[in-house]
């Protein structure tokens, strides 16, 4: 069992398979584990915000990089999960298990909406460019809908949807009596990031993942080999929507509020930017890019810098023009071709 999962992790679906890489990886994890002991809970909470976006970035990498299907509306699932959590946990405010039910409800809601949407687009076998556009339209409509839910008539149970002001007072996540806030929430995010990363890496090295990559390379041929491509594309879409939902859940548990602008056009751009800049064919590169770019956006906008969006847009254009496979992936490849290794190879040949 353990041997099998180790073999799956070591498979060819992501960069970084050398022992040196794993040493670096362990150092990075150790850094994140020890980080909160050295800084204030405010700084730790900021880093938790960078981390909680990672599942959504990984979902984009899975969908776009590994499956070849692009979605511009993944923030819609972020929002659906967040709002559902707010509604369920808010209505069960007395119960200590309310947040857990909220998490389940949020993820289930994401899965259902994504499955319906996926049924229409994948079973119709639409051309590849239609899916990003319809997902984008979907998230824009969701934003408009949530924006006009101001007022007392828009309430579910005791929870107000709140229109453009958003939903406030959303409870922390808790398991029984244990409430995740401050440092414990940071470790919750870190644990989820590490688990999703390894889970996806194993999934992509397993047979399912190999078929997914085969569909990206040649959909018709994969289908001729006897795989139901429509179902698999739909499944990948649902998984990646649920990952976006996971980020949404962590987001409302982190900030205790959500506004419709979280599913708006500017937010919708962000997962695509993280994935493109990192390199969509590598899960690890997307993790790195998500953390770094969130840090960059946060630092820029917290200084009142209005150029943040221009810089992010410019980064996207530059990446697509000059580093089409992603900046992190191309850097990793450059490091992988260290001069001493080339010399070694030359000596080996002679």
């Amino acid at each position, binding site marked *: 069992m353990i041997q099998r999962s180790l073999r799956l992790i070591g498979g060819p679906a992501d960069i970084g398979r050398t022992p040196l890489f794993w040493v670096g990886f362990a150092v990075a994890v150790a850094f994140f584990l020890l980080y909160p002991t050295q800084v204030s809970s405010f700084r730790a909470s900021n880093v938790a915000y960078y981390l909680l976006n990672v599942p959504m970035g990984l979902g984009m990498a899975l969908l776009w990089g590994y499956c070849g299907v692009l979605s511009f509306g993944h923030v819609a699932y972020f929002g659906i999960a967040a709002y559902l959590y707010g509604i369920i946990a808010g209505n069960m405010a007395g119960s200590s298990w309310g947040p857990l039910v909220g998490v389940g409800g949020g993820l289930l809601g994401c899965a259902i909406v994504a499955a319906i949407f996926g049924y229409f687009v994948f079973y119709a076998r639409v051309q590849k460019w239609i899916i990003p556009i319809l997902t984008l339209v979907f998230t824009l409509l969701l934003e408009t809908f949530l924006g006009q839910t101001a007022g007392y008539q828009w309430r579910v149970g005791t929870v107000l949807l709140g229109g453009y002001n958003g939903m406030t007072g959303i409870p922390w996540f808790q398991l029984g009596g244990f409430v995740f806030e401050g440092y414990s929430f940071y470790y919750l995010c870190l644990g989820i990031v590490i688990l999703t990363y390894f889970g996806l890496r194993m999934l992509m090295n397993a047979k399912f993942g190999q078929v997914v990559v085969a569909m990206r390379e040649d959909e018709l041929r994969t289908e001729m080999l006897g795989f139901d491509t429509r179902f698999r594309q739909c499944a990948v879409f649902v998984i990646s929507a649920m990952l976006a939902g996971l980020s949404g859940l962590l987001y409302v548990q982190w900030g205790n509020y959500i506004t419709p602008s979280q599913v708006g056009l500017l937010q919708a751009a962000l997962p695509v930017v993280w994935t493109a800049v990192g390199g969509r064919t590598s899960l690890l590169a997307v993790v790195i890019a998500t953390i770094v770019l969130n840090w960059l956006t946060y630092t820029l906008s917290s200084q009142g810098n209005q150029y943040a*969006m221009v810089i992010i847009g410019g980064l996207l254009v530059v990446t697509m023009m000059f580093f089409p496979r992603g900046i992190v992936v191309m850097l990793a490849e450059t490091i992988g071709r260290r001069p001493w290794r080339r010399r070694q190879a030359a000596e080996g040949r002679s």
Partner: protein
Amino acid sequence: MSESLPLAASLIYQIGATAAFLFLAAVGLVIILGMMNIINLAHGELMMMGAYAATITHHAGLPFWAAVIASFFVVAIFGAIMELTIIRRFYGRELGALVVTWGISLIMGQGAFLVFGPFMQAIKIPGGSFSYGAFSFSEYWIVLMLVSLLLVLALWLVYNKTTYGLQAKASMQNAEMARSLGVPTKRIYTLTFALGAGLAGLSGALLAPTATIAPFMGQQFVAPAFITVVVGGGANVISGAVGSGVLLALIKTPVGMALGAFSGTVALLIAALIIIRIMPDGISARLQRVFDRRVQKRQS
């Protein structure tokens, strides 16, 4: 009887206005998509640019119609620059083009905000309104319907009667063959992108009096424009845009009148999902097939 005639007129007017809006919002997009296979997500921002160009020149003293035409050229030149510097690298990479144009749209939206601030004084709607029965009709929207028809006619003439149109269609069908026959495909692509961008600017300028002039106004055109294009399909873009504009107007108008504007837009998305489930290549492919069959029947 005296009540039903104005009601019918009002219904036709509403549907016509919605169809004109959808067609205008989508026309620049479909030219670029159909002729170059590039999905331009900066389309909404190009319309915003057209609206700003028209508003600024109009406030500077230009008559409205001259301002509209000026905005066509301003945005067309911008489009040509965009094609020469960026879009050129993305031919044959549909998803890459989508993402890079989205990056451009982010820069343009925020850029307009930084340069012009959050608001700009709007243009007053030219022309008045008249009433028939219990309903009132805006003269400007009737003009916009006529302008849409004129645009369809003009585009048909350009693509069927000019050398540029012939060369553009040749480049679309088989770029390599066209190149070896001496068609300057690169210049054709630049011109086509400039034309599509210019039309987006023209539409933005035409719709400017009916909208709020703001840096992110492009977003409101994104949903209707792209739904129109998705439903229309890529086989014959102009007839596709006209067909899907009319069809979607027939769906949106009654729903919007009964349940409010937002429900109308939701009905658009649901209609689009169902239509692509039935006809994955859009209306234009279906129209093309019907047309081909009729021609075959006549020949046999």
